[in-house]
């Protein structure tokens, strides 16, 4: 019937769907067939499929009808049709929540689960667990335990996964199966391994020690499943984060080792885990970034996406770590997958240089309309951070943002743009006018109330201070006319600010206010009336208090106080002063708004207030004024750890001592911290902590009254002693002895300072608040700044008598503020101020960016110190410039990567060098801390002729020029050394011209990654007297991939010395050494093999009779040897061999490069070519083999990019080769040769 229906439908059109017009009632009607005997499996199967299909389409089944169908279905267990039975399981699972009494199938399922049919067992377990609750679980526990360790993988997997689902419901029962899970984890099946690991982790995740042990075991045993590896990596990184483990931890090593796993999934997981570690330095990131870089060129979109998304995250924290991938990212900006392109561009925006910004912005604007809102937000965020990095680019950005603002988009997207524009306005005063104009235009047609009010608020704040405030009034008043209540109210407030700050606008503002007072909305009317009255007073103090600076109390605190007030009504009016002040600094507001629900959580102070209010003695102290940060009163590693929090009240102070007992064989009781004040403070009460068992923190309190008679006596020092009763106890059980003894422990002194009596108050409009305070509180003082480093003693004199101005200008945006991490402090000491330095100009500028919060992003402080000649007494006649552009992080020093110090001493200064010009420039990049990333020191040494006595008559130039890639300059790692020796210098070479040229290698196809110079060594005839009659060619051919040319990395050098040459070499000594570049500090990135080629005369003798050794020694790192990537190829042609070579025994072995660790980057297949004499026999008259061996990676295949072509022409063979070079003659190859090649 169904099939017939199918057929008909199909004929009627392509849109056939046998399930399209299904009626639930009809299907349920059909389900009666389940009760027929004998069962017709085919039809029943189809009906079950229909039921499941309907459920899947979201069709609602009533409980009764579902139960009815379910019960009918249970009859189908009588049939032995496999598919039907399996569909029954599916139906059970689908209906488990809809139908009643599903547990009636328990026995049938239990039977299948323990039966002989393996096909049924797994699915039966899963269906059974779906319908089982905690009470029933006990009954099947025995079966589950057996199933977990079952040798059939599908059964074991099913049992493990089902157990995992049930952990949430009945943890205690499943916990008992941990041994079985442990056994399953050592299964050979990869999925069983994975599921067992997952279950074990879920059972143990609260026990860090157990997790740690488990990790230890599995990381050592080496799992087979890539999924399990991913899981292990996640567990390891979580544990690392929790324990704040360093990068020397074995867990980190494990994760790093996974970067060399065979499976891309695991490699990516490991890279991602490393990238997401909160405290990861550029060094630890480097390997992760380089695998991600490889993934960037993967043909798989998902892999590229994953890589670029992760790189994007890295770029947020460590832009410099990602710059190595810029070229790969450039390739991705035209990716057909717009998500990938967007991420690539935003990453580049973070890492790229200022010059590339325009190009990238142009590129992205070409397809910004095609990408989803989520990614548009990413783009906006990238722009926002870019604006902070390159403030000069703000006009480009502003233009782009205003275009984006005009386009369609959701709230999130618009909000991100508005935040970004506000951020730019705050950072760049010169962009304020354009930014405000764009925003004004935006609110003309803005559907989002939140954004409109936000912009109006900003206009009110910034507008009055612009040169032409009146032009904003029109925009604001338009809102009053056109918008909803909330926007109108915000517009009224903004208007009031214009009136308060611009006297000439006041009359017009008052007129507008008047009109607002007729508004239909209460709030708008109230605001207008209020502002109208305040403005009419024309008093600055009133304006400041009521128009510029709003409430500065904490909102949750206000809410609580008001609630309290309504619960307990009194005659007294509500006192605003009783509400705790807001403590959140403005800069944190942004992060708080992004997590709206958390913002409403009570602040720290509110928590303290509640805790203290619960203690009887502290009631009646009034509202809590301030709680200080915790002060450590002991060292961190002592027996007892005590921290103190100072709570300040109107007349009292409460000291809260948080004590922790770190001795597991002691129980402390009646713990009190006794305080001896130095001033007239009076200790009123001690509230002891009753019990202080091992490692459980407890608090005791002291209540102190502030001296009443002297309100200025605010600071005081207390000497503290902790007194307590010790009871020894059993470390294992914790049972204490019956009796104890009194003891005391001296703590560090506790100080109460002025700061404890001062509460920070937010003043959004600082200028207005400053004016409000008035002149009488102003005070001027002179401070000598001890922390400024002076140069030498002679300078210090004048500085002492000078007046310094220290201004600390914190650039942060209260609105977008997110990336504003670097307060900029400008220190200026101008000449006139510094009496003695009057005739000079001395400027010390320290533009040290650091983050006040974590210090983490403080990457590049730049301090320029310039002392001009007249200032420097002793150096008067000279010009002496010391420039230290040393980037260092003041906090951790961790990211200090490339200080560059240039030291220039001009001739007159350097007595001994007076007659000469001597310049020593050392641009050696090194890290003063670890020296680890010191990669490319470039040292230029120039000695001009007059200086170098012995070299006087000659011009001798040694230049070591750092290698560069002609395309991007990115991978330029290897200095190219050019050695030029002109004739006059080289006595022996006088009559000759000798040129060594090092030509940069390139790939003939794309030329992109052609990084290594090919060095051609040409010795012309006149030089090589003896070689005149010979032809001598040294060719170093750069390897390249004919396909992509991309990864052609290592040049192979082919050295051909034909027989006739060797003769003349006898009388000469000839050494050509090409020494690979290395890093003097760590040697870690020393990547290039050093090849030493020595042909000494005496050696050559035997060469004739042929002893010839060419050794190419692989590069190695002198320190760790870790990055030694290239196998050493030894080419030996010893004399005795050579004999046979003639009669032909010839061995060429080329051993591929491999990584000794994982072999993963071993990208070059090994081809061994052996031609032994006997073989050659048949080929004697023509042995010429050209093989192009396509490189492949035995592991991943896709990265096998480099075919290697070996071309060997031995002398005796060459004759025929000539013939074979002709395509026509190829046909004439002896058959034997073909057979031979085939067998190879």
């Amino acid at each position, binding site marked *: 019937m169904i099939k017939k229906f199918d057929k008909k439908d*199909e004929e009627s059109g392509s849109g056939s769907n046998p399930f399209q017009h299904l009626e639930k009632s009809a299907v349920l009607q059909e389900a009666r067939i389940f009760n027929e005997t004998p069962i017709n499996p085919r039809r029943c199967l189809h009906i079950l499929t229909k039921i499941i299909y309907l459920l*899947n*389409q*979201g069709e609602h089944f009533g409980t009764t009808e579902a139960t009815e169908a379910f019960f009918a279905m249970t009859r189908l267990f009588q049939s032995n049709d496999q598919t039907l039975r399996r569909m029954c399981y599916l139906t059970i699972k689908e209906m488990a929540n809809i139908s009643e009494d599903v547990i009636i199938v328990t026995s049938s399922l239990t039977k299948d689960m323990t039966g002989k049919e393996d096909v049924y067992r797994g699915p039966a377990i899963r269906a059974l667990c779906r319908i089982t609750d905690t009470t029933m679980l006990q009954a099947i526990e025995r079966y589950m335990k057996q199933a977990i360790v079952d040798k059939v993988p599908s059964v074991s997997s099913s049992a493990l996964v089902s157990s995992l689902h049930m952990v949430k419901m009945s943890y205690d029962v499943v916990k008992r199966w941990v041994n079985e899970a442990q056994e399953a984890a050592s299964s050979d099946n990869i999925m069983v391994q994975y599921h067992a690991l997952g279950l074990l982790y879920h059972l143990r995740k609260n026990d860090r020690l157990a997790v740690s042990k488990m990790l230890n075991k599995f990381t050592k045993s080496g799992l087979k499943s890539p999924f399990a590896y*991913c*899981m292990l990596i996640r567990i390891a990184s979580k544990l690392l984060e929790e324990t704040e483990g360093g990068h020397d931890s074995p867990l980190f090593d494990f994760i790093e080792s996974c970067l060399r796993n065979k499976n891309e999934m695991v490699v990516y997981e490991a890279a991602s885990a490393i990238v*997401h570690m909160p405290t990861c330095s550029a060094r630890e990131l480097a390997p992760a970034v380089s695998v991600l870089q490889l993934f960037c060129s993967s043909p798989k979109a998902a892999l590229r996406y994953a890589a670029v998304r992760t790189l994007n995250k890295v770029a947020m924290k460590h832009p410099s770590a990602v710059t190595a991938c810029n070229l790969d990212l450039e390739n991705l900006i035209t990716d057909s997958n717009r998500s990938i392109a967007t991420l690539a561009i935003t990453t580049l925006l973070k890492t790229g240089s200022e010059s590339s910004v325009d190009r990238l912005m142009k590129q992205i604007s070409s397809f910004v309309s095609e990408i*989803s809102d989520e990614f548009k937000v990413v783009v906006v965020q990238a722009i926002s951070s870019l604006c902070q990095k390159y403030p000069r680019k703000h006009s480009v950005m502003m233009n782009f943002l205003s275009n984006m603002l005009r386009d369609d988009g959701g709230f999130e997207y618009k909000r991100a743009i508005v935040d970004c524009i506000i951020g730019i306005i705050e950072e760049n005063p010169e962009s304020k006018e354009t930014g405000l104009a764009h925003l004004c235009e935006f609110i003309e047609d803005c559907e989002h109330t939140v954004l409109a009010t936000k912009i109006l608020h900003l206009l009110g704040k910034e507008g009055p201070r612009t040169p032409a405030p009146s032009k904003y009034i029109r925009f604001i008043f338009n809102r009053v006319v056109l918008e909803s209540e909330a926007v109108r109210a915000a517009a009224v407030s903004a208007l009031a600010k214009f009136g308060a700050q611009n006297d000439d606008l006041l009359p017009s503002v008052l007129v507008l206010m008047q009109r607002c007072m007729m508004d239909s909305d209460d709030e708008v009317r109230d605001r207008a009336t209020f502002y109208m009255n305040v403005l009419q007073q024309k008093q600055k103090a009133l304006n400041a208090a009521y128009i510029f600076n709003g409430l500065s109390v904490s909102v949750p605190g206000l809410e609580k106080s008001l609630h309290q007030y309504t619960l307990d009504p009194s005659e007294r009016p509500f006192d605003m002063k009783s509400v705790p002040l807001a403590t959140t600094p403005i800069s944190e507001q942004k992060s708080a708004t992004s997590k709206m629900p958390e913002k409403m959580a009570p602040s720290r102070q509110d928590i303290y207030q509640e805790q203290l209010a619960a203690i009887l003695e502290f009631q009646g102290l009034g509202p809590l004024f301030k709680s200080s940060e915790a002060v450590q009163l002991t060292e961190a590693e002592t027996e007892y750890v005590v921290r103190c929090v100072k709570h300040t009240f109107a007349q009292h102070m409460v000291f809260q001592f948080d004590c922790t007992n770190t001795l597991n064989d002691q129980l402390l009781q009646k713990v009190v911290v006794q305080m001896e004040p130095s001033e007239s403070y009076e200790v009123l009460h001690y509230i002891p902590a009753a019990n202080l068992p091992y490692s459980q923190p407890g608090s005791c309190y002291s209540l102190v009254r502030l001296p009443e008679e002297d309100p200025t006596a605010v600071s005081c020092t207390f000497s503290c002693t902790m007194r307590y009763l010790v009871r020894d106890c059993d470390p294992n059980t914790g049972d204490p002895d019956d009796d104890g003894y009194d003891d005391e422990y001296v703590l560090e002194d506790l100080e109460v300072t002025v700061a404890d009596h001062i509460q920070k108050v937010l003043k959004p409009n600082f200028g207005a608040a400053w004016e409000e305070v008035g002149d009488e509180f102003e005070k001027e003082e002179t401070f000598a700044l001890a922390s400024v480093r002076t140069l030498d003693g002679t300078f210090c004199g004048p500085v002492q008598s000078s007046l310094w101005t220290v201004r600390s200008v914190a650039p942060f945006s209260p609105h977008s503020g997110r990336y504003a991490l670097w307060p900029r402090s400008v220190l200026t000491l101008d000449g006139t101020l510094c009496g003695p330095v009057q005739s000079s100009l001395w400027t010390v500028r320290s533009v040290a960016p650091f983050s006040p919060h974590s210090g983490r992003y403080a990457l590049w402080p730049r301090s320029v110190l310039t002392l001009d000649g007249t200032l420097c007494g002793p150096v008067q006649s000279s010009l002496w410039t010391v420039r230290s552009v040393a980037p260092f992080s003041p906090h951790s020093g961790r990211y200090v990567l490339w200080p560059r110090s240039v030291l220039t001493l001009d001739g007159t200064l350097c007595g001994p060098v007076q007659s000469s010009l001597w310049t020593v420039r050392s641009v050696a990049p090194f890290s003063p801390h670890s020296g680890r990333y010191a990669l490319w020191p470039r040292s230029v040494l120039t000695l001009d002729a007059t200086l170098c006595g012995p070299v006087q008559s000659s011009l001798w130039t040694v230049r070591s020029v750092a290698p560069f890639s002609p395309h991007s300059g990115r991978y330029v790692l290897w200095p190219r050394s050019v050695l030029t020796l002109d004739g006059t210098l080289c006595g022996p070479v006088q009559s000759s011209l000798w040129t060594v040229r090092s030509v940069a290698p390139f790939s003939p196809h794309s030329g992109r990654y052609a990084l290594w110079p090919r060095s051609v060594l040409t010795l012309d005839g006149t030089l090589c007297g003896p070689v005149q009659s010979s032809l001598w060619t040294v060719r170093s051919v750069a390897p390249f991939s004919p396909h992509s040319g991309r990864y052609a990395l290592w040049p192979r050098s082919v050295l051909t010395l034909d027989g006739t040459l060797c003769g003349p070499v006898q009388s000469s000594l000839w050494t050509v050494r090409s020494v690979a570049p290395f890093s003097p500090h760590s040697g870690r990135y020393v990547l290039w093999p050093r090849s030493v080629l020595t042909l000494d005369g005496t050696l050559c003798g035997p060469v004739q009779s042929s002893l010839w050794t060419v050794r190419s020694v692989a590069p190695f790192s002198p320190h760790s040897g870790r990055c030694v990537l290239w196998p050493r190829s030894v080419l030996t042609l010893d004399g005795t061999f050579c004999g046979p070579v003639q009669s032909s025994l010839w061995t060429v072995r080329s051993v591929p490069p491999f990584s000794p660790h994982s072999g993963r980057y071993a990208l070059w297949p090994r081809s061994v070519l052996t031609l032994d004499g006997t073989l050659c026999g048949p080929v004697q008259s023509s042995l010429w083999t050209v093989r192009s061996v396509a490189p492949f990676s035995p592991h991943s295949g896709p990265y096998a990019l480099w075919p290697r072509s070996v071309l060997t022409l031995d002398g005796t063979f060459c004759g025929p080769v000539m013939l074979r070079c002709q395509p026509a003659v190829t046909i004439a190859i002896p058959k034997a040769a073909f057979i031979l090649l085939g067998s190879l």
Partner: protein
Amino acid sequence: MLSVSLDQARYGCNLVAHGVFQEPSLYTVKALFILDNDGNRLLSKYYDPELYPSMKEQNNFEKNVFNKTHKADNEIAFLEGMTVVYKSSIDLFFYVVGSPQENELMLMSVLNCLFDSLTQILRKNVERRYLLENMEGVFLVVDEIIDGGVILESDPQQVLQKVNYKLVSEQAYGFVLFDYITGSLEGEAERGQLL
């Protein structure tokens, strides 16, 4: 307003915040669905009860995903704060959805396994008509690949072995029709047994 802020929190944490650690878990797949070329649902599974609990939200999500993905075969997208990997074949679209922190390659392995298993079950005729004709097989395959969001199997051969499903082939179709016409229920029952 609340929903906006929740959405925002979700995107915010997905895209902006980093160092957000994912709790190690086997629950990899949030949803899986197969749509036809009009974006209609043929099969869909939501494994995370918190993600789109109602049918309406699910349909909206599927429509949105379909609209954003059916034009270009891009393999991966980031939509509504979720990572979506997808694949199309003739008139079918296969989607696997995971959390934004999820390893994209894991999701791909699920998608590939699903696709390869179905390719074999449908004898390479991965199109709507054949899929619907063998819907029970499709249900069983999905059931064997993912259980409640946990990857149960990722090797198509293993899946096929576990499902042990026989295609409703063209030939069989003829037989069934014949059986139907001749009213031979016995014959049909016998065929059923064989199947």
